């Protein structure tokens, strides 16, 4: 597997780590942030950050993709 692809998959694992694996540790009401219960705040933060992770994944994946290889116009 190309290095870019591997790094892209790692970034793709970010929402799974934060929004699935971390849930047992963030299932709490306090501290509240901007009035939101902590669990809800945590989920919203990582939902909002996932596009950033995927954007970076796209950049890394693109960088070492062989020219013309596997990508139709």
């Amino acid at each position, binding site marked *: 597997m190309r290095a870019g692809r591997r790094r*892209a*998959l790692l970034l*793709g694992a970010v*929402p*799974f780590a934060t*929004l*699935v*694996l971390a*849930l*047992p540790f963030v*299932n*709490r*009401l306090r501290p*509240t942030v*901007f*009035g*939101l*219960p902590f*669990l*809800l705040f945590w*989920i*919203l933060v*990582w*939902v*909002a950050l*996932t*596009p950033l*992770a*995927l*954007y970076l*994944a*796209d950049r890394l994946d693109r960088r070492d993709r062989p020219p013309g290889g*596997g*990508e*139709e*116009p």
Partner: protein
Amino acid sequence: MTPALAIIVAVVLVAAFVGFWAGRRVPMNLENWTVGGRRFGLLLMWFLMAGEVYTTFTFLGASGWAYARGAPTYYILIYGTLAYTVSFFLLPELWRRGKRFGLHTQPDFFIQAFGSRALGVFVALVGVASILPYLQLQLAGLGLIVEVSSGGKVGSGVAIPAAFVLTCAFVFTSGLRGSAWVAVIKDVLMIAAVGIVGFGVPAVHYGGLGPMFKALAAKAPQHLVLPGSTSSLGVAWVMSTVLLTGAGFYMWPHMFASAFSARSAEVIRRNAVIMPFYQLPILLVLGVGFTAFLALPGLANGDMAFLSLVQKTYPAWFLGFVGAAGAVTAMVPASVLVLTASTLIAKNIFRAGFKPGASEATVLRISRAMVLVVMAAALVFALVFPNALVNLLLIGYDGVSQLFPAVVLSLVWKRTTKAGALAGVVTGIAVAAGLVFTKHDPVWGLNAGFVALAVNAAVTVAVSLLGKRKNAHA
């Protein structure tokens, strides 16, 4: 005619007109009808996908869950985000195969990947069996929304046939392009409605979203952390449910096929990057449900929380606007579901089973005829036998999700066999149905569909390996 009713009628008619207009001067062949000629750019793709994802469930179900169950409803924020992450990696591959082999449907993919027409027929049957109850659910939601928002002037017995016949008519003429353009209207209206209601309702009753949550945390703190006001939907349930539904999301035949309609793999990847932002407005929908929990306790049906609170807070004409947005919100997914079911029946069941030589022009003709058949069937189920498909609906998501291991393994593991795929899917559906119908969902705190998915993946791998070994000896 009251102002509310006039708004609903006008918006539904405009939406249907745009659906017709979208198909003008497009020469209709199977490719244009089913996958929009594979020409959708980033913007139209985004509207279409968002249009398919945001169903009446977004209005009624998510707020209803927030009202009746509390924190377990957060799973809705999570699973979409996981699904888009999966789609970032998965859909470009599907698109490439679709482009190279001219695929139109999900069963087409299975036939190509495993070289088995029988597997294609089976997958098509699973698809149709999952779509019909889902379609009925959309129609029921549409009926409820129009009935309430018109102040009871238009019963669901009138609203459902009227809106659905218009929907099927633009599907018939314009195909997927019609759905995509109606989705533009729908997304704009729905975001406006959710924005106004989502910020407005907590502000009117509690002075804002933050103070509302503060009041809720003081009154019922357990409602805001897992398992909320339920006994069985705890952390393990949410974890297993988001993994199941995140995997199953693009296994719905209509979502799967939407990957084929993009102009390029690039469009799909960029679409996946921005889609999670579209999850954030759901917070506002949940906020409405939570506000209703405080302001309107004791509703018999939690799904009425959103509409009841709008009714209590806003003038009648605004309820009409929300109803109009809700009606179009049901029409877009309904249109794509009808289109997909018709194509599955015509191409992957009828042609594969009875007329292997039928041309694409013939398949298109049969698909369009099937629009009428599916429409009639859905109307009968929605109006006459509303409970007939309840069991299918219960396992709809569990069922389509069982296609995930076969799809992914076929792309990344060359040794996956068609026997492995078939055995896995059949076992998965059987396990899910067995657990759900014997009331063992959740089972050990986990979503039953997730347990079925794990068994399914293991069976797919095991049977594929065994099959290979036998071949090696032969």
